[in-house]
Protein backbone atom coordinates (compact mmCIF):
# COMPACT_ATOMS: atom_id res chain seq x y z
CA UNK A 1 0.00 0.00 0.00
CA UNK A 2 1.11 3.46 -0.86
CA UNK A 3 0.36 4.82 2.57
CA UNK A 4 2.63 2.30 4.27
CA UNK A 5 5.48 3.47 2.06
CA UNK A 6 4.78 7.04 2.97
CA UNK A 7 4.55 6.40 6.67
CA UNK A 8 7.55 4.06 6.85
CA UNK A 9 10.20 6.80 7.03
CA UNK A 10 8.30 8.40 9.89
CA UNK A 11 8.17 5.13 11.74
CA UNK A 12 11.90 4.70 11.30
CA UNK A 13 12.58 8.21 12.55
CA UNK A 14 10.31 7.65 15.48
CA UNK A 15 11.83 4.34 16.45
CA UNK A 16 15.29 5.82 16.31
CA UNK A 17 14.09 8.72 18.42
CA UNK A 18 12.75 6.18 20.86
CA UNK A 19 16.00 4.36 21.24
CA UNK A 20 17.92 7.58 21.69
CA UNK A 21 15.74 8.99 24.38
CA UNK A 22 15.37 7.65 27.85
CA UNK A 23 11.92 7.29 29.26
CA UNK A 24 12.19 7.55 32.96
CA UNK A 25 11.64 10.99 34.32
CA UNK A 26 12.19 11.10 38.00
CA UNK A 27 9.61 12.80 40.11
CA UNK A 28 10.93 16.11 41.26
CA UNK A 29 9.17 18.63 43.39
CA UNK A 30 8.65 22.28 42.62
CA UNK A 31 10.99 22.97 45.45
CA UNK A 32 13.85 21.36 43.56
CA UNK A 33 15.96 24.44 43.03
CA UNK A 34 18.02 23.10 40.17
CA UNK A 35 14.96 21.96 38.22
CA UNK A 36 13.30 25.34 38.75
CA UNK A 37 16.44 27.14 37.61
CA UNK A 38 16.65 24.92 34.54
CA UNK A 39 12.97 25.57 33.86
CA UNK A 40 13.48 29.33 34.13
CA UNK A 41 16.30 29.10 31.60
CA UNK A 42 14.19 26.99 29.23
CA UNK A 43 11.27 29.37 29.65
CA UNK A 44 13.47 32.32 28.84
CA UNK A 45 14.93 30.61 25.77
CA UNK A 46 11.70 29.19 24.38
CA UNK A 47 8.65 31.04 25.55
CA UNK A 48 9.46 34.35 23.90
CA UNK A 49 10.31 32.93 20.51
CA UNK A 50 6.88 33.32 18.93
CA UNK A 51 4.98 35.63 21.22
CA UNK A 52 5.58 37.77 24.29
CA UNK A 53 6.34 35.40 27.13
CA UNK A 54 3.20 34.81 29.21
CA UNK A 55 3.82 35.25 32.94
CA UNK A 56 3.01 32.40 35.28
CA UNK A 57 0.26 34.21 37.19
CA UNK A 58 -2.00 34.38 34.12
CA UNK A 59 -3.15 30.81 34.69
CA UNK A 60 -3.66 28.48 37.59
CA UNK A 61 -1.42 25.45 37.97
CA UNK A 62 -4.29 23.30 36.80
CA UNK A 63 -4.69 25.34 33.62
CA UNK A 64 -0.97 25.40 32.97
CA UNK A 65 -0.91 21.60 33.07
CA UNK A 66 -3.27 21.65 30.08
CA UNK A 67 -1.66 24.59 28.28
CA UNK A 68 1.88 23.26 28.56
CA UNK A 69 1.42 20.20 26.29
CA UNK A 70 -0.02 22.58 23.65
CA UNK A 71 3.09 24.73 23.94
CA UNK A 72 5.44 21.77 24.18
CA UNK A 73 4.19 20.80 20.72
CA UNK A 74 4.40 24.35 19.33
CA UNK A 75 7.87 24.96 20.71
CA UNK A 76 9.22 21.50 19.86
CA UNK A 77 10.30 20.93 23.42
CA UNK A 78 11.07 17.52 24.82
CA UNK A 79 8.95 16.07 27.59
CA UNK A 80 11.73 16.63 30.07
CA UNK A 81 12.12 20.24 29.06
CA UNK A 82 8.37 20.76 29.44
CA UNK A 83 8.53 19.28 32.95
CA UNK A 84 11.29 21.68 33.92
CA UNK A 85 9.26 24.65 32.62
CA UNK A 86 6.29 23.34 34.59
CA UNK A 87 8.43 23.21 37.72
CA UNK A 88 9.46 26.82 37.15
CA UNK A 89 5.86 27.96 36.61
CA UNK A 90 4.71 25.97 39.63
CA UNK A 91 7.43 27.43 41.83
CA UNK A 92 6.07 30.96 41.45
CA UNK A 93 2.51 29.78 42.03
CA UNK A 94 3.03 27.52 45.00
CA UNK A 95 2.22 29.05 48.35
CA UNK A 96 4.56 26.92 50.44
CA UNK A 97 7.47 27.75 48.21
CA UNK A 98 6.83 31.39 47.91
CA UNK A 99 7.41 32.97 51.16
CA UNK A 100 5.00 35.85 51.36
CA UNK A 101 4.78 38.41 54.08
CA UNK A 102 1.76 36.69 55.55
CA UNK A 103 3.24 33.26 55.94
CA UNK A 104 5.24 32.78 59.06
CA UNK A 105 8.91 32.96 58.33
CA UNK A 106 10.14 32.73 61.90
CA UNK A 107 10.59 29.00 61.80
CA UNK A 108 12.49 29.11 58.51
CA UNK A 109 16.12 30.25 58.41
CA UNK A 110 16.62 33.31 56.22
CA UNK A 111 18.19 32.25 52.94
CA UNK A 112 21.03 34.29 51.47
CA UNK A 113 20.54 36.46 48.39
CA UNK A 114 22.61 34.07 46.34
CA UNK A 115 20.48 31.09 47.40
CA UNK A 116 17.27 32.96 46.63
CA UNK A 117 18.49 33.99 43.20
CA UNK A 118 19.23 30.34 42.46
CA UNK A 119 15.98 29.00 43.90
CA UNK A 120 13.85 31.51 41.98
CA UNK A 121 15.75 31.04 38.75
CA UNK A 122 16.50 34.74 38.21
CA UNK A 123 19.46 33.79 36.04
CA UNK A 124 17.16 31.96 33.65
CA UNK A 125 16.22 35.39 32.37
CA UNK A 126 18.87 37.78 33.67
CA UNK A 127 22.63 37.98 33.51
CA UNK A 128 23.93 38.29 37.07
CA UNK A 129 27.69 38.38 37.64
CA UNK A 130 28.38 37.43 34.07
CA UNK A 131 26.02 34.48 33.86
CA UNK A 132 22.45 33.99 32.77
CA UNK A 133 19.80 34.42 30.10
CA UNK A 134 18.96 37.43 27.98
CA UNK A 135 15.16 37.62 28.10
CA UNK A 136 15.44 40.34 30.73
CA UNK A 137 18.17 42.96 31.21
CA UNK A 138 21.42 42.27 33.09
CA UNK A 139 21.06 43.04 36.78
CA UNK A 140 24.63 43.84 37.79
CA UNK A 141 24.20 47.61 37.58
CA UNK A 142 20.45 47.85 38.18
CA UNK A 143 20.65 48.71 41.87
CA UNK A 144 23.27 51.37 41.16
CA UNK A 145 21.37 52.78 38.16
CA UNK A 146 17.80 52.67 39.39
CA UNK A 147 18.04 52.46 43.13
CA UNK A 148 17.10 50.00 45.87
CA UNK A 149 13.48 51.22 45.99
CA UNK A 150 12.98 50.51 42.32
CA UNK A 151 14.29 46.95 42.57
CA UNK A 152 12.17 46.18 45.64
CA UNK A 153 9.10 47.57 43.90
CA UNK A 154 9.88 45.56 40.78
CA UNK A 155 10.08 42.36 42.81
CA UNK A 156 6.79 43.18 44.53
CA UNK A 157 4.87 44.07 41.37
CA UNK A 158 6.75 43.43 38.11
CA UNK A 159 4.06 45.08 35.97
CA UNK A 160 4.23 48.41 37.83
CA UNK A 161 6.39 49.96 35.12
CA UNK A 162 5.73 47.55 32.26
CA UNK A 163 2.28 46.10 31.71
CA UNK A 164 3.65 43.48 29.30
CA UNK A 165 6.35 42.22 31.65
CA UNK A 166 7.25 38.54 31.56
CA UNK A 167 8.90 38.82 34.92
CA UNK A 168 7.14 36.53 37.41
CA UNK A 169 5.67 38.00 40.53
CA UNK A 170 7.39 36.49 43.53
CA UNK A 171 5.49 37.46 46.68
CA UNK A 172 8.54 36.87 48.78
CA UNK A 173 9.12 38.28 52.21
CA UNK A 174 10.61 41.72 52.75
CA UNK A 175 13.71 40.09 54.18
CA UNK A 176 14.07 37.98 51.01
CA UNK A 177 13.79 41.03 48.79
CA UNK A 178 16.39 42.85 50.84
CA UNK A 179 18.72 39.85 50.69
CA UNK A 180 18.41 39.78 46.88
CA UNK A 181 19.09 43.51 46.60
CA UNK A 182 22.18 43.15 48.81
CA UNK A 183 23.39 40.30 46.68
CA UNK A 184 22.82 42.25 43.45
CA UNK A 185 24.72 45.21 44.92
CA UNK A 186 27.70 43.15 45.95
CA UNK A 187 30.66 42.98 43.57
Amino acid at each position, binding site marked *: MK*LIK*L*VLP*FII*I*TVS*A*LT*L*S*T*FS*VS*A*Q*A*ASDGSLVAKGAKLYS*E*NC*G*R*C*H*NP*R*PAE*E*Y*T*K*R*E*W*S*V*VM*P*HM*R*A*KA*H*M*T*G*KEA*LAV*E*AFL*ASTLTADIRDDDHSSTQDKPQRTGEELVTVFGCQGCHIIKGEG*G*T*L*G*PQLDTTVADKGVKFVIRKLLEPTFN*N*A*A*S*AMPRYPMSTADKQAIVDYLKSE
Partner: protein
Amino acid sequence: MKTKYLYKAVTTALLLSSASVAYASDASTLDVGRLAISGYGDVGYTYQPNKKDADGNDIQNNVVARFIPIFLFQMSEKIHIEAELEFAVDENGETETVLEYANMHYFFNDNTIITAGRFLLPFGQFGANLHPSWINKAASNPGIYGGHGGNGSMGGVTGIMNDTGVNISNTWSLGDAGKLFTDFYVVSGPRQEAGDHGGGVDMDVKKGDNNDSMALGGRVAYAFLPQWEIGLSYYSGAYSNDGELDYTAYTIDFNWIGSYATVRGEIFGSTAGTEWEEEVELPDGSEVHEEFLQDLNKNGFYVQGTWQARQLGKAWLNPIELVLRYSKTASDFDGSISHVLEEDGGRMGSRIYYGINYWLEPSAVLKFGAESTSIDNEAASHDPIADDRIFLQLAFGF
Protein backbone atom coordinates in the same frame (compact mmCIF):
# COMPACT_ATOMS: atom_id res chain seq x y z
CA MET B 1 -6.91 7.04 3.95
CA LYS B 2 -9.80 9.47 3.87
CA THR B 3 -10.63 12.26 6.25
CA LYS B 4 -13.49 10.35 7.81
CA TYR B 5 -11.16 7.57 8.92
CA LEU B 6 -9.01 10.13 10.62
CA TYR B 7 -11.98 11.58 12.38
CA LYS B 8 -12.95 8.06 13.42
CA ALA B 9 -9.47 7.46 14.75
CA VAL B 10 -9.57 10.68 16.71
CA THR B 11 -13.01 9.92 18.07
CA THR B 12 -11.97 6.42 19.08
CA ALA B 13 -8.93 7.76 20.86
CA LEU B 14 -11.16 10.27 22.59
CA LEU B 15 -13.54 7.58 23.73
CA LEU B 16 -10.80 5.23 24.81
CA SER B 17 -9.02 7.81 26.83
CA SER B 18 -12.13 9.23 28.42
CA ALA B 19 -12.89 5.72 29.61
CA SER B 20 -9.72 5.84 31.63
CA VAL B 21 -9.60 8.61 34.17
CA ALA B 22 -7.01 11.27 33.51
CA TYR B 23 -4.38 10.38 36.03
CA ALA B 24 -2.03 12.63 37.87
CA SER B 25 1.49 12.40 36.63
CA ASP B 26 4.13 11.87 39.27
CA ALA B 27 6.52 13.85 37.20
CA SER B 28 4.63 17.08 36.76
CA THR B 29 4.80 19.62 39.55
CA LEU B 30 1.52 21.16 38.48
CA ASP B 31 -1.92 20.09 39.65
CA VAL B 32 -3.12 18.06 36.72
CA GLY B 33 -6.09 19.61 35.02
CA ARG B 34 -8.33 18.33 32.29
CA LEU B 35 -9.72 21.28 30.37
CA ALA B 36 -8.48 24.76 29.61
CA ILE B 37 -10.08 27.37 27.42
CA SER B 38 -7.85 29.93 25.83
CA GLY B 39 -7.86 31.73 22.52
CA TYR B 40 -7.75 35.16 21.08
CA GLY B 41 -9.81 37.87 19.51
CA ASP B 42 -9.55 41.22 17.82
CA VAL B 43 -11.51 44.22 16.73
CA GLY B 44 -10.11 46.08 13.79
CA TYR B 45 -10.92 49.25 11.98
CA THR B 46 -9.55 49.81 8.48
CA TYR B 47 -9.65 53.05 6.58
CA GLN B 48 -9.11 52.78 2.82
CA PRO B 49 -9.32 56.12 1.09
CA ASN B 50 -9.46 54.59 -2.38
CA LYS B 51 -11.59 51.53 -1.95
CA LYS B 52 -14.76 51.14 -4.01
CA ASP B 53 -17.31 48.36 -4.06
CA ALA B 54 -18.38 46.58 -7.25
CA ASP B 55 -20.74 49.42 -8.18
CA GLY B 56 -18.10 52.07 -7.73
CA ASN B 57 -19.43 53.42 -4.43
CA ASP B 58 -16.91 54.51 -1.86
CA ILE B 59 -16.51 52.02 0.96
CA GLN B 60 -13.76 53.41 3.01
CA ASN B 61 -14.36 52.29 6.51
CA ASN B 62 -14.49 48.73 7.69
CA VAL B 63 -14.87 47.23 11.07
CA VAL B 64 -14.18 43.55 11.58
CA ALA B 65 -14.34 41.57 14.77
CA ARG B 66 -13.21 38.06 15.53
CA PHE B 67 -13.43 35.76 18.49
CA ILE B 68 -11.39 32.57 18.35
CA PRO B 69 -11.69 30.24 21.32
CA ILE B 70 -9.29 27.34 21.75
CA PHE B 71 -10.38 24.25 23.67
CA LEU B 72 -7.61 22.21 25.19
CA PHE B 73 -8.25 18.82 26.76
CA GLN B 74 -5.76 16.70 28.57
CA MET B 75 -7.02 13.14 28.29
CA SER B 76 -3.95 11.66 29.88
CA GLU B 77 -0.28 12.40 30.19
CA LYS B 78 0.18 11.11 26.64
CA ILE B 79 -2.95 12.26 24.87
CA HIS B 80 -3.98 15.80 24.39
CA ILE B 81 -6.79 17.24 22.26
CA GLU B 82 -7.02 20.74 20.91
CA ALA B 83 -9.61 22.55 18.82
CA GLU B 84 -9.87 26.09 17.63
CA LEU B 85 -13.01 27.75 16.32
CA GLU B 86 -13.22 31.09 14.64
CA PHE B 87 -16.28 33.36 14.83
CA ALA B 88 -15.91 36.41 12.68
CA VAL B 89 -18.05 39.34 11.65
CA ASP B 90 -16.65 40.47 8.33
CA GLU B 91 -16.74 43.81 6.61
CA ASN B 92 -20.14 43.05 5.09
CA GLY B 93 -21.60 42.40 8.51
CA GLU B 94 -21.88 38.68 7.93
CA THR B 95 -20.94 36.13 10.53
CA GLU B 96 -18.61 33.31 9.62
CA THR B 97 -17.69 30.26 11.65
CA VAL B 98 -14.61 28.26 10.76
CA LEU B 99 -13.01 25.23 12.35
CA GLU B 100 -9.37 26.24 12.30
CA TYR B 101 -8.10 23.00 13.72
CA ALA B 102 -9.18 19.99 15.76
CA ASN B 103 -6.56 17.40 16.46
CA MET B 104 -5.01 15.01 18.87
CA HIS B 105 -1.41 15.02 20.02
CA TYR B 106 0.04 11.75 21.09
CA PHE B 107 3.20 12.33 23.12
CA PHE B 108 4.89 9.21 21.94
CA ASN B 109 8.12 9.65 23.86
CA ASP B 110 10.40 12.37 25.13
CA ASN B 111 11.04 13.89 21.73
CA THR B 112 8.35 12.61 19.36
CA ILE B 113 4.83 13.94 19.00
CA ILE B 114 2.30 12.41 16.63
CA THR B 115 -0.57 14.67 15.65
CA ALA B 116 -3.69 13.43 13.89
CA GLY B 117 -6.73 15.33 12.72
CA ARG B 118 -6.98 18.77 11.30
CA PHE B 119 -3.97 20.88 12.17
CA LEU B 120 -2.08 23.98 11.13
CA LEU B 121 0.55 22.80 8.69
CA PRO B 122 4.13 23.34 9.78
CA PHE B 123 4.84 25.22 6.59
CA GLY B 124 6.97 28.25 7.36
CA GLN B 125 6.38 30.17 10.57
CA PHE B 126 3.59 32.61 9.88
CA GLY B 127 0.78 30.16 9.21
CA ALA B 128 1.57 27.81 12.07
CA ASN B 129 2.86 30.14 14.76
CA LEU B 130 2.57 33.81 14.08
CA HIS B 131 -0.86 34.54 12.62
CA PRO B 132 -2.95 34.91 15.82
CA SER B 133 -3.57 38.62 16.10
CA TRP B 134 -1.97 39.04 19.55
CA ILE B 135 1.16 37.36 18.16
CA ASN B 136 1.23 38.97 14.71
CA LYS B 137 2.98 42.28 15.29
CA ALA B 138 1.17 43.93 12.41
CA ALA B 139 -2.55 44.48 11.92
CA SER B 140 -2.41 42.77 8.52
CA ASN B 141 -0.81 39.64 7.12
CA PRO B 142 2.49 39.56 5.24
CA GLY B 143 1.94 40.02 1.50
CA ILE B 144 2.67 36.40 0.65
CA TYR B 145 -0.15 35.37 2.99
CA GLY B 146 -2.54 37.98 1.65
CA GLY B 147 -5.44 35.60 1.37
CA HIS B 148 -6.20 34.53 4.90
CA GLY B 149 -7.58 37.12 7.24
CA GLY B 150 -5.43 39.58 5.41
CA ASN B 151 -6.27 42.12 2.88
CA GLY B 152 -7.12 41.52 -0.72
CA SER B 153 -5.48 43.33 -3.49
CA MET B 154 -2.14 41.61 -3.31
CA GLY B 155 -3.37 38.05 -3.69
CA GLY B 156 -1.44 35.77 -1.37
CA VAL B 157 0.86 33.37 -3.11
CA THR B 158 -0.16 30.52 -0.92
CA GLY B 159 -3.18 29.24 0.85
CA ILE B 160 -1.27 26.61 2.75
CA MET B 161 -2.56 26.89 6.29
CA ASN B 162 -4.35 23.86 7.65
CA ASP B 163 -5.36 20.41 6.46
CA THR B 164 -6.37 16.99 7.69
CA GLY B 165 -3.91 14.16 8.15
CA VAL B 166 -1.05 12.98 10.33
CA ASN B 167 2.12 14.79 11.39
CA ILE B 168 5.18 13.46 13.17
CA SER B 169 7.30 15.98 14.95
CA ASN B 170 10.70 15.45 16.50
CA THR B 171 13.22 17.45 18.47
CA TRP B 172 16.93 16.73 18.58
CA SER B 173 19.50 18.47 20.73
CA LEU B 174 22.72 19.49 19.06
CA GLY B 175 24.96 20.68 21.82
CA ASP B 176 23.98 23.14 24.50
CA ALA B 177 21.89 25.63 22.55
CA GLY B 178 21.50 23.92 19.17
CA LYS B 179 18.26 22.16 18.27
CA LEU B 180 17.00 20.39 15.23
CA PHE B 181 13.23 20.40 14.74
CA THR B 182 11.61 18.12 12.18
CA ASP B 183 8.03 17.73 11.07
CA PHE B 184 6.72 15.40 8.39
CA TYR B 185 3.11 15.10 7.42
CA VAL B 186 0.68 13.37 5.09
CA VAL B 187 -2.53 15.30 4.53
CA SER B 188 -5.49 15.09 2.21
CA GLY B 189 -4.10 17.85 0.02
CA PRO B 190 -5.33 20.57 -2.28
CA ARG B 191 -8.34 20.34 -4.59
CA GLN B 192 -9.13 21.62 -8.02
CA GLU B 193 -11.34 24.58 -8.63
CA ALA B 194 -13.48 25.00 -11.71
CA GLY B 195 -12.07 27.40 -14.27
CA ASP B 196 -9.93 27.78 -17.35
CA HIS B 197 -6.59 26.03 -17.67
CA GLY B 198 -7.44 23.46 -15.06
CA GLY B 199 -9.03 25.96 -12.72
CA GLY B 200 -6.92 26.62 -9.72
CA VAL B 201 -5.59 25.16 -6.56
CA ASP B 202 -8.22 25.15 -3.86
CA MET B 203 -6.66 24.73 -0.45
CA ASP B 204 -9.99 24.64 1.33
CA VAL B 205 -9.99 21.24 2.93
CA LYS B 206 -13.38 21.00 4.48
CA LYS B 207 -14.64 19.21 1.40
CA GLY B 208 -12.34 16.21 1.80
CA ASP B 209 -9.90 14.96 -0.76
CA ASN B 210 -10.83 14.80 -4.41
CA ASN B 211 -8.23 12.33 -5.64
CA ASP B 212 -6.56 9.33 -4.11
CA SER B 213 -3.18 10.92 -3.76
CA MET B 214 -2.32 12.60 -0.52
CA ALA B 215 -0.15 15.67 -0.16
CA LEU B 216 3.18 15.36 1.59
CA GLY B 217 5.22 17.92 3.32
CA GLY B 218 7.63 18.74 6.06
CA ARG B 219 9.79 21.26 7.77
CA VAL B 220 13.34 20.89 9.00
CA ALA B 221 14.64 23.69 11.14
CA TYR B 222 17.82 24.48 12.96
CA ALA B 223 17.51 26.62 16.04
CA PHE B 224 20.29 28.15 18.03
CA LEU B 225 18.42 29.23 21.12
CA PRO B 226 17.35 31.72 22.13
CA GLN B 227 18.24 33.86 19.14
CA TRP B 228 18.11 31.96 15.88
CA GLU B 229 15.81 29.67 13.99
CA ILE B 230 16.04 28.86 10.30
CA GLY B 231 13.61 26.46 8.69
CA LEU B 232 13.09 24.91 5.31
CA SER B 233 9.58 23.72 4.45
CA TYR B 234 8.34 21.75 1.49
CA TYR B 235 4.87 20.79 0.36
CA SER B 236 3.74 18.77 -2.62
CA GLY B 237 0.42 17.34 -3.71
CA ALA B 238 -1.71 16.57 -6.74
CA TYR B 239 -4.65 18.92 -6.91
CA SER B 240 -6.59 18.00 -10.05
CA ASN B 241 -9.43 15.50 -9.99
CA ASP B 242 -7.48 13.13 -12.23
CA GLY B 243 -4.44 13.48 -9.99
CA GLU B 244 -2.28 14.72 -12.86
CA LEU B 245 -1.75 18.35 -11.96
CA ASP B 246 0.61 18.99 -9.08
CA TYR B 247 1.06 21.85 -6.71
CA THR B 248 4.42 22.18 -4.98
CA ALA B 249 5.69 24.88 -2.69
CA TYR B 250 8.65 25.62 -0.46
CA THR B 251 9.45 28.33 2.01
CA ILE B 252 12.57 29.26 3.90
CA ASP B 253 11.85 31.01 7.16
CA PHE B 254 14.42 32.86 9.19
CA ASN B 255 13.93 34.26 12.65
CA TRP B 256 16.21 36.30 14.83
CA ILE B 257 14.88 37.05 18.28
CA GLY B 258 16.80 39.51 20.41
CA SER B 259 15.97 40.88 23.86
CA TYR B 260 14.39 44.02 22.36
CA ALA B 261 14.20 43.41 18.62
CA THR B 262 13.19 40.70 16.19
CA VAL B 263 13.79 40.15 12.50
CA ARG B 264 11.78 37.52 10.68
CA GLY B 265 10.97 36.63 7.17
CA GLU B 266 10.10 34.00 4.65
CA ILE B 267 11.20 33.32 1.11
CA PHE B 268 8.52 31.46 -0.77
CA GLY B 269 8.17 29.74 -4.13
CA SER B 270 5.43 27.61 -5.69
CA THR B 271 4.60 25.87 -8.94
CA ALA B 272 1.22 24.74 -10.16
CA GLY B 273 0.77 22.55 -13.20
CA THR B 274 -1.96 23.91 -15.47
CA GLU B 275 -3.73 22.69 -18.59
CA TRP B 276 -3.64 24.68 -21.80
CA GLU B 277 -5.00 24.21 -25.28
CA GLU B 278 -4.14 25.86 -28.54
CA GLU B 279 -5.16 25.70 -32.21
CA VAL B 280 -1.99 25.18 -34.23
CA GLU B 281 -1.98 25.92 -37.94
CA LEU B 282 -0.12 23.32 -39.99
CA PRO B 283 1.82 24.27 -43.19
CA ASP B 284 -1.01 22.83 -45.33
CA GLY B 285 -3.40 25.30 -43.82
CA SER B 286 -5.36 22.86 -41.68
CA GLU B 287 -5.64 23.37 -37.91
CA VAL B 288 -4.99 20.91 -35.14
CA HIS B 289 -6.05 21.17 -31.55
CA GLU B 290 -3.19 20.73 -29.08
CA GLU B 291 -3.38 20.27 -25.37
CA PHE B 292 -0.39 20.71 -23.14
CA LEU B 293 0.64 21.19 -19.56
CA GLN B 294 2.46 24.23 -18.35
CA ASP B 295 3.88 25.14 -14.99
CA LEU B 296 2.95 28.49 -13.55
CA ASN B 297 5.09 29.92 -10.79
CA LYS B 298 4.45 32.27 -7.97
CA ASN B 299 7.05 33.44 -5.54
CA GLY B 300 7.72 36.13 -3.03
CA PHE B 301 9.19 37.05 0.29
CA TYR B 302 8.52 39.13 3.33
CA VAL B 303 10.80 40.53 5.96
CA GLN B 304 9.67 42.12 9.21
CA GLY B 305 11.56 43.93 11.92
CA THR B 306 10.27 44.93 15.34
CA TRP B 307 11.85 46.94 18.09
CA GLN B 308 10.76 47.63 21.66
CA ALA B 309 11.39 51.17 22.79
CA ARG B 310 11.88 49.73 26.31
CA GLN B 311 15.53 49.47 25.30
CA LEU B 312 15.90 53.24 25.80
CA GLY B 313 15.23 52.80 29.53
CA LYS B 314 12.49 55.43 29.81
CA ALA B 315 9.50 54.11 31.74
CA TRP B 316 6.91 55.83 29.51
CA LEU B 317 8.39 54.12 26.44
CA ASN B 318 8.05 50.64 27.97
CA PRO B 319 4.77 49.69 26.22
CA ILE B 320 5.83 50.92 22.77
CA GLU B 321 6.98 48.76 19.91
CA LEU B 322 7.75 49.75 16.33
CA VAL B 323 7.11 47.48 13.35
CA LEU B 324 8.31 47.63 9.77
CA ARG B 325 7.48 45.01 7.16
CA TYR B 326 8.10 44.68 3.48
CA SER B 327 6.59 42.04 1.20
CA LYS B 328 7.04 41.36 -2.48
CA THR B 329 5.42 38.83 -4.78
CA ALA B 330 5.80 37.92 -8.42
CA SER B 331 3.74 35.53 -10.46
CA ASP B 332 3.42 34.12 -13.96
CA PHE B 333 -0.18 35.24 -14.00
CA ASP B 334 -0.02 38.53 -15.77
CA GLY B 335 -3.71 39.25 -15.55
CA SER B 336 -4.20 38.57 -19.26
CA ILE B 337 -5.84 35.24 -18.58
CA SER B 338 -8.64 34.41 -16.27
CA HIS B 339 -7.54 31.91 -13.71
CA VAL B 340 -8.55 31.25 -10.17
CA LEU B 341 -4.94 31.15 -9.03
CA GLU B 342 -4.58 34.71 -10.15
CA GLU B 343 -6.97 35.86 -7.43
CA ASP B 344 -7.12 39.58 -7.75
CA GLY B 345 -3.41 39.86 -8.05
CA GLY B 346 -1.06 41.27 -10.52
CA ARG B 347 2.20 40.13 -11.92
CA MET B 348 4.20 41.94 -9.31
CA GLY B 349 3.15 43.37 -6.04
CA SER B 350 4.93 44.98 -3.16
CA ARG B 351 3.65 46.15 0.14
CA ILE B 352 5.09 48.09 3.02
CA TYR B 353 3.68 48.29 6.53
CA TYR B 354 4.65 50.75 9.25
CA GLY B 355 3.23 50.24 12.68
CA ILE B 356 3.28 51.37 16.27
CA ASN B 357 2.05 48.96 18.91
CA TYR B 358 1.02 49.85 22.42
CA TRP B 359 1.14 46.85 24.75
CA LEU B 360 -1.51 46.76 27.46
CA GLU B 361 -0.57 43.32 28.72
CA PRO B 362 1.77 40.54 27.56
CA SER B 363 -1.01 39.41 25.24
CA ALA B 364 -3.10 42.52 24.67
CA VAL B 365 -2.05 45.15 22.21
CA LEU B 366 -3.37 48.19 20.45
CA LYS B 367 -1.90 48.38 16.95
CA PHE B 368 -1.81 51.42 14.78
CA GLY B 369 -0.54 50.80 11.25
CA ALA B 370 -0.27 52.25 7.78
CA GLU B 371 0.17 50.09 4.74
CA SER B 372 0.78 50.86 1.13
CA THR B 373 0.50 48.32 -1.67
CA SER B 374 1.61 48.80 -5.22
CA ILE B 375 0.64 46.36 -7.89
CA ASP B 376 1.96 46.22 -11.40
CA ASN B 377 -0.90 44.88 -13.49
CA GLU B 378 0.50 45.72 -16.89
CA ALA B 379 -1.36 43.11 -18.88
CA ALA B 380 -4.45 42.94 -16.73
CA SER B 381 -7.74 44.13 -18.04
CA HIS B 382 -8.15 46.53 -15.16
CA ASP B 383 -6.05 49.52 -14.18
CA PRO B 384 -3.50 49.32 -11.41
CA ILE B 385 -5.24 49.38 -8.07
CA ALA B 386 -4.09 51.99 -5.62
CA ASP B 387 -4.32 50.53 -2.18
CA ASP B 388 -3.34 52.46 0.90
CA ARG B 389 -4.78 51.53 4.24
CA ILE B 390 -4.73 52.69 7.80
CA PHE B 391 -5.41 50.21 10.56
CA LEU B 392 -6.42 50.45 14.16
CA GLN B 393 -6.68 47.08 15.86
CA LEU B 394 -7.14 45.85 19.37
CA ALA B 395 -5.92 42.28 19.71
CA PHE B 396 -5.90 40.07 22.76
CA GLY B 397 -4.95 36.53 23.67
CA PHE B 398 -6.50 34.96 26.74
